[in-house]
């Protein structure tokens, strides 16, 4: 791999814009402490980006740092560093990549120093590990920790009790603490303004994701989707930059649709669309391109994925609502994908298979994330039963290169694609 000649990667204007945005955020983080700007560390699912902006607090996302380190092939040694310092081999590698980075001086993925946080905003949404993660990070810093406990949607619905609990925490704990940390008084109109921007970008995001209902699909809703969700799942939701990014992206995709083109891949245009798939689970970030290539080389396009819903489920109608800002923040937190029950996740994936006319389901099960992974084999069975479409099960990890066996993954995918083809040919005959 490393010996191969460097390949020209094809990039569109929206991609370049996104890269600029992300790099700028890392730069801004690197100077925050010196410039006296307040910094929060916080998680992607259930993040309160608009609210933090109301207090001029810069947002640092440890998950994003971990995945960026994964993509840049830095995570392996960071994970081992954390394991040398007592973390178990068994636990989440996002956490270990983050802790390993802290142990090595907290230099971020782009080489810029990451700032010490002034507040740890623990949005405890859909992932048990988040709680331990911030307890572990807190050991190193003397700063406020806010626990925002978001109850689990076990019965597939948000009850008034759950919403009230989150709203109360926001009003009586989160906002007063942020006021204290930042010295800035909370202004609800400012929040409303950010939320108006959020909703605009959310509309475009949904349009973009749903463009995959076309044949051929102009996007890949998993590998490509990871890029599309970048701004809105992180520090940019509620900013004009995000609105602008999604408008540009929508324009590009509109053009592809008009031209009858498939998705863009790192190696240029997608060939003939042979298989339409729904993907459940997270990507693997250490071998992201290699993994993607196994799909597009076979003409397999992902038309819908659950991963593009971890930072917010928008395609069933939810939007950030400037008229009910706090309540809609609560609903946003409660509604993130990993906070949904298994039956609700199954229902969602079945509807994707139907609505996007998919040929099958691929589950990428990662060792790190029990929130995603525990129960996926039952999901597979249940979805196969309900839709009659065959599924494939692949095992990798988020950012631990030790858990990506290319030969093993490729073997399964190839077998799966050939099975789909054989079945298709048989049905056609």
């Amino acid at each position: 791999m490393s010996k191969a000649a460097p390949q020209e990667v094809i990039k569109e204007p929206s991609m370049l814009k996104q890269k600029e945005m992300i790099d700028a955020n890392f730069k801004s983080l690197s100077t925050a402490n010196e410039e006296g700007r307040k910094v929060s560390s916080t998680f992607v699912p259930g993040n309160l980006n608009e609210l933090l902006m109301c207090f001029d607090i810069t947002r640092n996302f440890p998950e994003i740092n971990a995945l960026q380190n994964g993509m840049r092939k830095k995570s392996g040694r960071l994970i081992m560093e954390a394991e040398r310092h007592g973390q178990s081999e068994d636990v989440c590698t996002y956490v270990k990549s983050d802790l390993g980075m802290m142990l090595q001086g907290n230099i971020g993925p782009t080489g810029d120093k990451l700032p010490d946080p002034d507040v740890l905003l623990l949005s405890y949404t859909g992932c048990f590990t988040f709680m331990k993660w911030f307890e572990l990070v807190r050991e190193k810093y003397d700063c406020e920790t806010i626990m925002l406990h978001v109850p689990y949607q076990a019965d597939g619905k948000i009850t008034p009790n759950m919403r009230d609990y989150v709203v109360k925490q926001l009003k009586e704990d989160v906002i007063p603490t942020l006021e204290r940390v930042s010295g800035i008084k909370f202004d609800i109109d400012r929040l409303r303004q950010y939320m108006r921007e959020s909703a605009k970008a959310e509309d475009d995001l949904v349009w973009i994701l749903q463009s995959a209902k076309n044949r051929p699909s102009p996007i890949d809703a998993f590998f490509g989707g990871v890029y599309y969700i970048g701004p809105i799942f992180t520090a940019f939701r509620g900013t004009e930059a995000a609105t602008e990014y999604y408008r540009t992206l929508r324009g590009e995709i509109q053009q592809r649709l008009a031209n009858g083109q498939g998705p863009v891949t790192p190696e240029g245009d997608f060939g003939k669309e042979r298989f339409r798939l729904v993907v459940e689970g997270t990507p693997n970030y250490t071998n992201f391109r290699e993994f993607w290539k196994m799909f597009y080389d076979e003409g397999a396009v992902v038309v819908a994925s659950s991963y593009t819903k971890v930072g917010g489920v928008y395609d069933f109608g939810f939007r950030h609502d400037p008229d009910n800002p706090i309540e809609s923040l609560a609903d946003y937190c409660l509604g993130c994908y990993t906070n949904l029950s298994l039956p609700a996740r199954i229902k969602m994936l079945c509807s994707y298979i139907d609505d996007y006319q998919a040929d099958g389901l691929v589950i990428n099960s990662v060792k790190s994330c029990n929130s995603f992974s525990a129960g996926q084999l039952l999901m597979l069975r249940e979805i196969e039963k309900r839709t009659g479409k065959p599924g494939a099960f692949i095992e990798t990890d988020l950012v631990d290169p030790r858990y990506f066996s290319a030969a093993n993954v490729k073997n399964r995918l190839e077998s799966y694609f050939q099975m789909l083809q054989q079945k298709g040919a048989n049905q056609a005959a």
Partner: protein
Amino acid sequence: MTVQEIVDRCQALYDDLHFNVVKEWKAAEPGRKAIGYLPIYVPREIIHAAGMLPVGILGGGDQLEVIHGDAYYQSYICRIPRSTIELGLTGRLDSLDGMLFPSICDVIRNLSGMWQLLFKDKYVRYFDVPQTYDDNIAGTFYIHELQSLRDDLGELAGRPITDDDLRRSIALYNDNRKALADLYQFRAGQPWQAPTSEIYLLLRAGMVLPVEEHSQLLRDYVAAAGREERPRRDNCRVVINGVFCEQPPLGLIKSLEMAGCYVVDDDFLLVTRWLLDDVPTTGEPMENLSKAFLHHSAATSAKFEPDKADKGKFLIEQVRNSGAEGVIFAAPSFCDPALLDRPMLQEALNRDDIPFTAFKYAENTGQLQAIREQAGTFADSIKLWSA
């Protein structure tokens, strides 16, 4: 009853993966119902107040062959959900009318959804407990959750649960906690008289017996054990931590004692000792249960510690109060809560100069030799330090 008779009874209950004792309890009176629950904590008082038997489900141990349960889990997920599914799919849990899945971790959380799909005719509830502790905020939420459980069980029972029902049940569980506290005190005082393998079996009996009967059994044991003449060995005294969900095999517990460690406190079956003080039997029962949870409950890895300075404090108090000389961290493989918590607890112990050792197990761990050696070495080193 003699110690042997009591232990034999508990051992038989422990070995019975078909829960015949639950079937017998139900058969004794028509219409009786039983509700299963997973570790760490559920308010058993509410189940009891509905006239139902709370039944603790702790996986399949090392005697259950897991075939279908394994089909649902990847190799990097712990054992307890797979053996629990095996118990369910093989009909061993048919005597249960419902199952409660407390918020321990994402694996057990998701298991609640799997149960909804696999056992459609059963009552299934994910029991969310607050991770913040303000009465006005978390208390309001939690009381609603308790009330909702109360309503559901009332419906299942065919009669509403009254406040007086609840107060009576609370009193019985207060009494059970009292009996347990006496048992733990007895063991901490004379660990050679009350081996932890026996204490553990007694606790396990509490997972399937009615609470009144269990409290009596605990008292009978303390009385009988006090009369025994047992050899006192030159063992070190340890607290065991991390065993709050998936259970170590009984052989492992015995191995620790054989290797020279008296366990004087632990986090086995926390449901039995989760609430640290008596819950008031007057006033609003739901509010009382809520306040007890928010302000007077044990610390464990699955619970958020709001104050950095208090991290590890509960464990250190366990060590001090029981006169322990060290801590054994025993965590199930792939247990996120225990394994992620461990480095922080170890750091706290380091600050207080409390020695510790650590290993992993699974409920069906077959090779105990390495654990025996490790525990033995730990016991020897403690004796060297204290000499």
